[in-house]
């Protein structure tokens, strides 16, 4: 890959594609475990910089090593640490090196590697990984720059393409539709029927959307109370659903009731009381919570799970269409990072530094009359060589790649050697 660089990037990972749940569970790390792991890895000299990204779908160890082929011991270390047979661990893992390792991280940050294409949570997880590594002191110039570049690239992809724009989850699609009916969801009253898993998902979504008047009805009152307490809503008695309808703009059916709990006459009465203001029903319950004939009432919008799943499928396609554009953006950002990384080597840096100093020398000599320049040039050259001798020796003698790259990066920064590169 980058022959001029003094270090090599590598990646060892387990994700939902290659590794089954049993392995992934064992290599999923908590924040404390990440810190502990990084300390041991660096302590044993397996890597000279390291960051661990751990989410529910992936665990990935990014590292910087001095020479290619180093980091072999990483799998062995993880197998001992997590108490898993090394062979099994190796089978479920995947490896990347150099530019491919960087590209993988960029893809992860942009959500291209996620199960839900373009999801945004992963960006925070990548940022969190960098934060943990910095706290542990396991990052220096290279991985720090790599991760910051990846986060920036991920943000750019989400801002410049539509990959994160079309909702995929059923609650967000439902609320997107309701938003286009009412316009101001937070000011509306949302009634959730059922406090089970999907009722809770909807209630949470409503609360996150800023809905101020959120009501929850459940056959077992205690469950409604508990959910209402969790999401900041209000529990209403199951028997009062018909009485709650006139106030409800959005009604979400998720209960396990064997027969419909929202009947046509009740909705008709509610609509009269509402003076025809629209009502919005999402029925996700099987069997139905809302009588199908309700959909025929004037100004009633009614959907069932199927409708929303169709939208989710369309949105998945819309997001997938954006992948080529997202990849083009990532390649652009990757090229920029790699150019920086490639320059981060002792020989080109010393060449650049010498050129910079010679520029200064020539600028000064130009101010003298031409006849007088030669002796000054000789003196300046001698001084230049003397000045560069010690830094050159020290840089070349440095054995720890991370520290070496740190120093190269410091020189490049202090003498502004990357000027004109971007």
């Amino acid at each position: 890959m980058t022959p001029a660089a003094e270090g090599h990037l590598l990646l060892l990972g387990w994700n939902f594609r290659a590794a089954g749940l049993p392995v992934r569970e064992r290599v999923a790390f908590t924040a404390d475990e990440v810190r502990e792991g990084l300390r041991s890895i660096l302590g044993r000299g397996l890597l000279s910089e390291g960051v661990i990204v751990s989410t529910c779908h992936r665990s990935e160890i990014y590292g910087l090593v001095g020479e290619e082929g180093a980091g072999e011991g990483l799998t062995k270390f993880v197998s001992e640490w997590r108490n898993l047979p090394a062979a099994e661990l190796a089978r479920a893992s995947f490896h990347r090196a150099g530019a491919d390792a960087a590209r993988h991280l960029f893809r992860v940050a942009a959500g291209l590697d996620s199960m839900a294409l373009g999801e945004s949570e992963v960006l925070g997880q990548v940022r969190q990984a960098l934060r943990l590594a910095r706290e542990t002191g396991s990052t220096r110039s290279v991985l720090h720059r790599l991760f910051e570049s990846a986060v920036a690239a991920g943000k750019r992809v989400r801002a410049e393409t539509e990959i994160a724009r079309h909702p995929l989850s059923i609650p967000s699609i439902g609320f997107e539709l309701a938003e286009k009916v009412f316009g101001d969801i937070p000011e509306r009253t949302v009634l959730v029927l059922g406090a089970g898993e999907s009722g809770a998902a909807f209630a949470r979504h409503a609360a996150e959307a800023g809905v101020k008047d959120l009501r929850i009805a459940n056959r077992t009152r205690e469950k409604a109370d508990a959910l209402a307490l969790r999401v900041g809503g209000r529990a209403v008695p199951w028997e009062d659903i018909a009485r709650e309808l006139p106030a409800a703009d959005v009604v979400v059916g998720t209960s396990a009731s064997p027969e419909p709990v929202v009947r046509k006459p009740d909705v008709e009465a509610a609509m009269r009381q509402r003076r025809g203001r629209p009502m919005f029903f999402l029925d996700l319950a099987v069997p139905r919570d809302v009588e199908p004939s309700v959909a025929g009432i004037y100004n009633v919008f009614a959907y069932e799970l199927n409708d929303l799943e169709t939208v989710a499928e369309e949105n998945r396609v819309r997001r997938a269409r954006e992948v080529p554009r997202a990849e083009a953006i990532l390649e652009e950002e990757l090229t920029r990072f790699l150019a920086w990384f490639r320059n981060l080597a002792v020989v080109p840096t010393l060449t650049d530094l010498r050129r910079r100093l010679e520029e200064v020398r020539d600028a000064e000599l130009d101010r003298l009359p031409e006849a007088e320049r030669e002796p000054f040039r000789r003196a300046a050259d001698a001084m230049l060589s003397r000045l560069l001798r010690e830094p050159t020796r020290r840089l070349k003698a440095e054995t720890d790649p991370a520290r070496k790259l740190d120093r190269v990066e410091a020189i490049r920064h202090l003498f502004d050697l990357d000027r004109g590169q971007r």
Partner: protein
Amino acid sequence: MEPPFLGSFAVLLYAGAEALSIRSLVKERQRGLAPLLLAAGLVLHYADLHLRAAALHSVPYRTLSGSMSLFGWMLGIAYLLLLFRHRERAVGPFLIPFVILSTAMGLLLPTGGSPSGPETRGALFAFHVTLAILAYAAFTISFVLSLLYLIQNRQIRRAKTGVLFARLPALEVIGRMNRTSVTIGIAVLAVSVLLGALWARRVWEGLADAKVGWAMTTLFLYGFLLWMDRRGWEGRRVALLSIVGFGVVLFSYTFVNLYFSAEHTFR
């Protein structure tokens, strides 16, 4: 006759505003530029109207050309006011074409007018006609909003969440904007009819005229629309009613003008 230079330039600016607002509908960028172009067009258009008025010594409504141009200008003003009030730009691409169309017609139709008779002089009469044109502009906006309502309603019901779905305002927002424009239309038309009646008492014997009848029908229809909007017809039915109302407006602006009302047109 003055070369219609200002007017043509205004139409160009309107066309630019239209192009930009379509672009911002698709791309959601540089959204402030289209209203700015529109406003600049309106200023030029006003200068054009002013020149015409100076030549005629009266508000230029007496010819079809003049009143079309005035109508286009009022429509643009009304849209800007609506934009200001509701902060909703997505309506622009659908409305600005009407501004372009009527302004361009005002340029293309012959501008020669007959000398003004005593019946058509004075501030009272000027207000009567100007307000009537403003009312028709408001009803035109209501018509466009109603079409958008029907389109958006259809997309929501079929769960079609494409570009238009994303960019068009929520149904309630369109409904609210519609309510604003109809209310303004009714109020302004009512005042216009009243002024007209006062004026007619001075120059005519009676008020039995087809155009007055149609204006009353228009008033009644939009009044009914507003009433039913609060009585359970909010939504699709109100949109349909507004489209019918616009049909009546068009009818009284064209057919009644041309064939049924001999006295009430001044050409």
